[in-house]
Protein backbone atom coordinates (compact mmCIF):
# COMPACT_ATOMS: atom_id res chain seq x y z
CA UNK A 1 0.00 0.00 0.00
CA UNK A 2 1.32 3.37 -0.99
CA UNK A 3 -0.54 5.42 1.66
CA UNK A 4 0.91 6.18 5.08
CA UNK A 5 -2.49 6.24 6.78
CA UNK A 6 -6.21 6.24 6.00
CA UNK A 7 -6.49 10.02 6.23
CA UNK A 8 -4.03 10.35 3.36
CA UNK A 9 -6.05 7.82 1.38
CA UNK A 10 -9.30 9.75 1.81
CA UNK A 11 -7.70 13.12 1.04
CA UNK A 12 -6.35 11.82 -2.33
CA UNK A 13 -3.71 14.52 -2.55
CA UNK A 14 -6.38 17.23 -2.49
CA UNK A 15 -8.46 15.67 -5.27
CA UNK A 16 -10.91 13.93 -2.93
CA UNK A 17 -14.01 15.59 -4.45
CA UNK A 18 -13.09 14.48 -7.97
CA UNK A 19 -11.80 10.97 -7.20
CA UNK A 20 -14.50 10.03 -4.67
CA UNK A 21 -17.16 11.77 -6.76
CA UNK A 22 -16.25 9.38 -9.57
CA UNK A 23 -16.09 6.28 -7.35
CA UNK A 24 -19.29 7.19 -5.52
CA UNK A 25 -21.33 7.80 -8.68
CA UNK A 26 -20.12 4.53 -10.23
CA UNK A 27 -20.93 2.44 -7.16
CA UNK A 28 -24.27 4.20 -6.58
CA UNK A 29 -25.50 3.80 -10.17
CA UNK A 30 -24.48 0.14 -10.25
CA UNK A 31 -26.31 -0.56 -6.99
CA UNK A 32 -29.41 1.24 -8.28
CA UNK A 33 -29.24 -0.69 -11.56
CA UNK A 34 -29.00 -4.03 -9.75
CA UNK A 35 -31.87 -3.04 -7.41
CA UNK A 36 -34.11 -1.97 -10.32
CA UNK A 37 -33.37 -5.17 -12.26
CA UNK A 38 -34.15 -7.30 -9.21
CA UNK A 39 -37.40 -5.41 -8.53
CA UNK A 40 -38.53 -5.81 -12.15
CA UNK A 41 -37.80 -9.53 -12.03
CA UNK A 42 -39.79 -10.00 -8.81
CA UNK A 43 -42.68 -7.93 -10.23
CA UNK A 44 -42.72 -10.10 -13.36
CA UNK A 45 -42.70 -13.26 -11.26
CA UNK A 46 -45.62 -12.08 -9.11
CA UNK A 47 -47.50 -11.07 -12.30
CA UNK A 48 -46.94 -14.60 -13.65
CA UNK A 49 -48.07 -16.16 -10.37
CA UNK A 50 -51.30 -14.16 -10.13
CA UNK A 51 -52.16 -14.85 -13.77
CA UNK A 52 -51.22 -18.52 -13.62
CA UNK A 53 -53.77 -20.89 -15.28
CA UNK A 54 -53.94 -22.99 -12.12
CA UNK A 55 -54.70 -20.14 -9.75
CA UNK A 56 -55.51 -22.70 -7.08
CA UNK A 57 -51.79 -22.65 -6.31
CA UNK A 58 -52.28 -19.15 -5.04
CA UNK A 59 -52.95 -18.64 -1.39
CA UNK A 60 -49.90 -17.90 0.69
Amino acid sequence: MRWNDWAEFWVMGGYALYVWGSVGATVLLMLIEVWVAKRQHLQTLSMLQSNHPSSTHQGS
Partner: protein
Amino acid sequence: MNQGWFYYAAPQTFYGLAGKLWPWFALLASLLAIAGFWIGFMVAPTDAQQGEAYRIIFLHVPVSWMSMIIYLAMAFWSVLGLTLNTRLSAMMTRALAPTGAMFAFLSLWTGALWGKPMWGAWWVWDARLTSELILFFLYLGYIALTSAIDDTRRADRAGALIAIVGVINVPIIYFSVKWWNTLHQGASVSLTRAPSMAQLMLWGMLLMALAFWLYTFALVFYRVRTIILERERHTDWVNALPEAKGSTNS
Protein backbone atom coordinates in the same frame (compact mmCIF):
# COMPACT_ATOMS: atom_id res chain seq x y z
CA MET B 1 -23.60 -28.25 -27.40
CA ASN B 2 -23.97 -30.41 -30.53
CA GLN B 3 -27.32 -28.81 -31.25
CA GLY B 4 -25.41 -25.62 -32.01
CA TRP B 5 -26.05 -21.98 -31.30
CA PHE B 6 -29.63 -22.00 -32.49
CA TYR B 7 -30.50 -24.35 -29.68
CA TYR B 8 -29.38 -21.78 -27.12
CA ALA B 9 -30.94 -18.98 -29.15
CA ALA B 10 -34.37 -20.32 -28.25
CA PRO B 11 -35.67 -18.20 -25.36
CA GLN B 12 -36.69 -21.29 -23.43
CA THR B 13 -33.20 -22.80 -23.36
CA PHE B 14 -31.47 -19.45 -22.96
CA TYR B 15 -33.63 -18.68 -19.92
CA GLY B 16 -32.17 -21.71 -18.16
CA LEU B 17 -28.62 -21.12 -19.37
CA ALA B 18 -28.63 -17.43 -18.38
CA GLY B 19 -30.03 -18.37 -14.98
CA LYS B 20 -27.12 -20.72 -14.37
CA LEU B 21 -24.49 -18.28 -15.66
CA TRP B 22 -25.33 -14.89 -14.16
CA PRO B 23 -24.38 -15.69 -10.52
CA TRP B 24 -20.91 -16.79 -11.65
CA PHE B 25 -20.41 -13.66 -13.70
CA ALA B 26 -21.58 -11.57 -10.73
CA LEU B 27 -19.16 -13.34 -8.38
CA LEU B 28 -16.20 -13.00 -10.76
CA ALA B 29 -17.07 -9.35 -11.44
CA SER B 30 -17.06 -8.59 -7.70
CA LEU B 31 -13.71 -10.32 -7.13
CA LEU B 32 -12.06 -8.58 -10.09
CA ALA B 33 -13.51 -5.19 -9.06
CA ILE B 34 -12.01 -5.62 -5.57
CA ALA B 35 -8.64 -6.57 -7.06
CA GLY B 36 -8.80 -3.71 -9.57
CA PHE B 37 -9.77 -1.20 -6.89
CA TRP B 38 -6.98 -2.44 -4.64
CA ILE B 39 -4.34 -2.00 -7.34
CA GLY B 40 -5.76 1.26 -8.70
CA PHE B 41 -6.49 3.09 -5.47
CA MET B 42 -4.17 1.45 -2.94
CA VAL B 43 -1.05 0.19 -4.69
CA ALA B 44 -0.51 2.10 -7.94
CA PRO B 45 1.97 4.97 -7.67
CA THR B 46 1.06 8.65 -7.93
CA ASP B 47 1.18 10.09 -11.43
CA ALA B 48 4.07 12.52 -11.95
CA GLN B 49 1.95 15.07 -13.85
CA GLN B 50 -1.59 14.65 -12.53
CA GLY B 51 -1.03 13.67 -8.89
CA GLU B 52 -3.78 11.53 -7.38
CA ALA B 53 -6.46 12.92 -9.71
CA TYR B 54 -5.25 10.52 -12.40
CA ARG B 55 -6.80 7.62 -10.41
CA ILE B 56 -10.11 8.51 -12.04
CA ILE B 57 -8.60 6.68 -15.04
CA PHE B 58 -9.33 3.34 -13.31
CA LEU B 59 -13.04 4.08 -13.69
CA HIS B 60 -13.18 6.51 -16.60
CA VAL B 61 -11.42 4.34 -19.18
CA PRO B 62 -13.25 1.06 -18.33
CA VAL B 63 -16.73 2.70 -18.25
CA SER B 64 -15.98 4.47 -21.53
CA TRP B 65 -14.86 1.23 -23.17
CA MET B 66 -17.99 -0.51 -21.93
CA SER B 67 -20.25 2.28 -23.22
CA MET B 68 -18.84 1.66 -26.71
CA ILE B 69 -18.66 -2.14 -26.51
CA ILE B 70 -22.29 -2.42 -25.36
CA TYR B 71 -23.44 -0.28 -28.27
CA LEU B 72 -21.50 -2.52 -30.66
CA ALA B 73 -23.17 -5.54 -29.06
CA MET B 74 -26.60 -3.92 -29.49
CA ALA B 75 -25.88 -3.27 -33.18
CA PHE B 76 -24.65 -6.87 -33.58
CA TRP B 77 -27.83 -8.32 -32.05
CA SER B 78 -29.95 -5.92 -34.12
CA VAL B 79 -28.37 -7.09 -37.39
CA LEU B 80 -28.94 -10.68 -36.30
CA GLY B 81 -32.53 -9.90 -35.33
CA LEU B 82 -33.35 -8.19 -38.63
CA THR B 83 -31.68 -10.80 -40.84
CA LEU B 84 -32.31 -14.10 -39.05
CA ASN B 85 -35.46 -13.00 -37.24
CA THR B 86 -34.37 -14.68 -34.02
CA ARG B 87 -36.56 -13.74 -31.07
CA LEU B 88 -33.71 -13.65 -28.58
CA SER B 89 -31.80 -10.92 -30.50
CA ALA B 90 -34.20 -8.09 -29.72
CA MET B 91 -34.48 -9.25 -26.12
CA MET B 92 -30.68 -9.08 -25.77
CA THR B 93 -30.61 -5.62 -27.35
CA ARG B 94 -33.27 -4.41 -24.90
CA ALA B 95 -31.44 -5.97 -21.95
CA LEU B 96 -28.17 -4.28 -22.95
CA ALA B 97 -29.48 -0.73 -23.41
CA PRO B 98 -29.93 0.40 -19.76
CA THR B 99 -26.45 -0.78 -18.78
CA GLY B 100 -24.97 0.91 -21.85
CA ALA B 101 -26.74 4.15 -20.98
CA MET B 102 -25.42 3.93 -17.43
CA PHE B 103 -21.82 3.44 -18.60
CA ALA B 104 -22.12 6.30 -21.12
CA PHE B 105 -23.41 8.58 -18.35
CA LEU B 106 -20.58 7.47 -16.02
CA SER B 107 -18.07 8.13 -18.80
CA LEU B 108 -19.30 11.72 -19.05
CA TRP B 109 -19.56 12.11 -15.26
CA THR B 110 -16.10 10.77 -14.42
CA GLY B 111 -14.73 12.69 -17.40
CA ALA B 112 -16.17 15.94 -16.05
CA LEU B 113 -14.70 15.23 -12.61
CA TRP B 114 -11.33 14.60 -14.23
CA GLY B 115 -11.55 17.53 -16.64
CA LYS B 116 -12.26 20.11 -13.94
CA PRO B 117 -8.98 19.75 -11.99
CA MET B 118 -6.85 19.03 -15.11
CA TRP B 119 -8.29 21.36 -17.77
CA GLY B 120 -10.13 23.78 -15.51
CA ALA B 121 -13.47 22.93 -17.15
CA TRP B 122 -16.19 20.38 -16.41
CA TRP B 123 -17.08 20.30 -20.08
CA VAL B 124 -15.72 21.46 -23.43
CA TRP B 125 -17.33 20.96 -26.85
CA ASP B 126 -14.46 18.81 -27.99
CA ALA B 127 -14.85 15.98 -30.53
CA ARG B 128 -14.31 13.16 -28.01
CA LEU B 129 -16.68 14.57 -25.39
CA THR B 130 -19.36 15.56 -27.88
CA SER B 131 -19.40 12.18 -29.64
CA GLU B 132 -19.65 10.40 -26.26
CA LEU B 133 -22.57 12.68 -25.36
CA ILE B 134 -24.23 11.66 -28.65
CA LEU B 135 -23.70 8.01 -27.66
CA PHE B 136 -25.51 8.68 -24.37
CA PHE B 137 -28.39 10.30 -26.31
CA LEU B 138 -28.49 7.32 -28.70
CA TYR B 139 -28.99 4.99 -25.71
CA LEU B 140 -31.73 7.25 -24.34
CA GLY B 141 -33.29 7.44 -27.81
CA TYR B 142 -33.27 3.66 -28.13
CA ILE B 143 -34.89 3.20 -24.70
CA ALA B 144 -37.49 5.94 -25.29
CA LEU B 145 -38.39 4.71 -28.77
CA THR B 146 -38.73 1.02 -27.86
CA SER B 147 -40.80 1.79 -24.78
CA ALA B 148 -43.04 4.26 -26.65
CA ILE B 149 -44.19 1.68 -29.23
CA ASP B 150 -46.70 -0.77 -27.81
CA ASP B 151 -46.40 -3.41 -30.53
CA THR B 152 -43.34 -5.44 -29.48
CA ARG B 153 -42.30 -6.47 -32.99
CA ARG B 154 -42.54 -2.94 -34.35
CA ALA B 155 -40.70 -1.58 -31.30
CA ASP B 156 -37.94 -4.14 -31.80
CA ARG B 157 -37.54 -3.25 -35.47
CA ALA B 158 -37.47 0.49 -34.81
CA GLY B 159 -34.96 -0.05 -32.00
CA ALA B 160 -32.80 -2.24 -34.22
CA LEU B 161 -32.63 0.54 -36.82
CA ILE B 162 -31.51 3.11 -34.21
CA ALA B 163 -28.89 0.67 -32.93
CA ILE B 164 -27.54 -0.04 -36.43
CA VAL B 165 -27.58 3.53 -37.74
CA GLY B 166 -26.11 4.88 -34.51
CA VAL B 167 -23.19 2.45 -34.50
CA ILE B 168 -21.33 4.77 -36.92
CA ASN B 169 -20.79 6.98 -33.86
CA VAL B 170 -18.65 4.36 -32.08
CA PRO B 171 -15.59 4.54 -34.39
CA ILE B 172 -16.03 8.33 -34.41
CA ILE B 173 -15.67 8.35 -30.60
CA TYR B 174 -12.73 5.97 -30.72
CA PHE B 175 -10.75 7.81 -33.41
CA SER B 176 -11.88 11.33 -32.47
CA VAL B 177 -8.64 12.00 -30.60
CA LYS B 178 -6.70 11.16 -33.77
CA TRP B 179 -8.92 12.77 -36.38
CA TRP B 180 -9.42 16.07 -34.64
CA ASN B 181 -7.25 18.29 -32.53
CA THR B 182 -8.88 17.65 -29.18
CA LEU B 183 -8.28 18.68 -25.61
CA HIS B 184 -8.83 15.06 -24.61
CA GLN B 185 -5.62 13.06 -24.31
CA GLY B 186 -4.86 10.26 -26.75
CA ALA B 187 -5.46 6.58 -26.12
CA SER B 188 -3.76 5.22 -22.99
CA VAL B 189 -3.81 1.70 -24.38
CA SER B 190 -3.50 0.86 -28.04
CA LEU B 191 -3.49 -2.42 -29.92
CA THR B 192 -0.67 -1.29 -32.19
CA ARG B 193 1.89 0.07 -29.75
CA ALA B 194 3.12 -0.47 -26.22
CA PRO B 195 0.88 1.13 -23.56
CA SER B 196 2.00 4.60 -22.51
CA MET B 197 1.55 3.87 -18.83
CA ALA B 198 3.23 1.99 -15.99
CA GLN B 199 2.61 -1.75 -15.69
CA LEU B 200 0.79 -1.48 -12.38
CA MET B 201 -1.52 1.25 -13.66
CA LEU B 202 -2.25 -0.82 -16.76
CA TRP B 203 -3.13 -3.86 -14.65
CA GLY B 204 -5.45 -1.87 -12.43
CA MET B 205 -7.25 -0.54 -15.48
CA LEU B 206 -7.51 -3.89 -17.24
CA LEU B 207 -8.85 -5.58 -14.08
CA MET B 208 -11.51 -2.91 -13.69
CA ALA B 209 -12.43 -3.19 -17.37
CA LEU B 210 -12.79 -6.96 -17.05
CA ALA B 211 -14.85 -6.54 -13.87
CA PHE B 212 -17.26 -4.13 -15.62
CA TRP B 213 -17.46 -6.48 -18.59
CA LEU B 214 -18.47 -9.39 -16.35
CA TYR B 215 -20.86 -7.11 -14.43
CA THR B 216 -22.51 -6.35 -17.77
CA PHE B 217 -22.78 -10.07 -18.59
CA ALA B 218 -24.31 -10.82 -15.19
CA LEU B 219 -26.82 -7.99 -15.34
CA VAL B 220 -27.78 -8.51 -19.00
CA PHE B 221 -28.29 -12.24 -18.44
CA TYR B 222 -30.39 -11.43 -15.37
CA ARG B 223 -32.41 -8.78 -17.19
CA VAL B 224 -32.95 -10.86 -20.33
CA ARG B 225 -34.59 -13.55 -18.18
CA THR B 226 -37.15 -10.98 -16.98
CA ILE B 227 -37.79 -9.94 -20.59
CA ILE B 228 -38.14 -13.58 -21.70
CA LEU B 229 -40.69 -14.24 -18.95
CA GLU B 230 -42.70 -11.14 -19.88
CA ARG B 231 -42.76 -11.92 -23.58
CA GLU B 232 -43.37 -15.66 -23.28
CA ARG B 233 -45.81 -15.42 -20.38
CA HIS B 234 -48.61 -17.12 -22.33
CA THR B 235 -46.50 -20.15 -23.28
CA ASP B 236 -46.74 -23.54 -21.62
CA TRP B 237 -43.06 -23.70 -20.75
CA VAL B 238 -43.21 -20.47 -18.74
CA ASN B 239 -46.33 -21.59 -16.91
CA ALA B 240 -44.61 -24.89 -16.14
CA LEU B 241 -41.74 -23.13 -14.36
CA PRO B 242 -41.83 -23.52 -10.58
CA GLU B 243 -41.14 -19.79 -10.13
CA ALA B 244 -44.20 -18.98 -12.30
CA LYS B 245 -46.45 -21.18 -10.19
CA GLY B 246 -45.37 -19.54 -6.98
CA SER B 247 -45.39 -22.81 -5.08
CA THR B 248 -41.65 -22.95 -4.37
CA ASN B 249 -41.12 -19.21 -4.26
CA SER B 250 -41.16 -17.46 -0.95
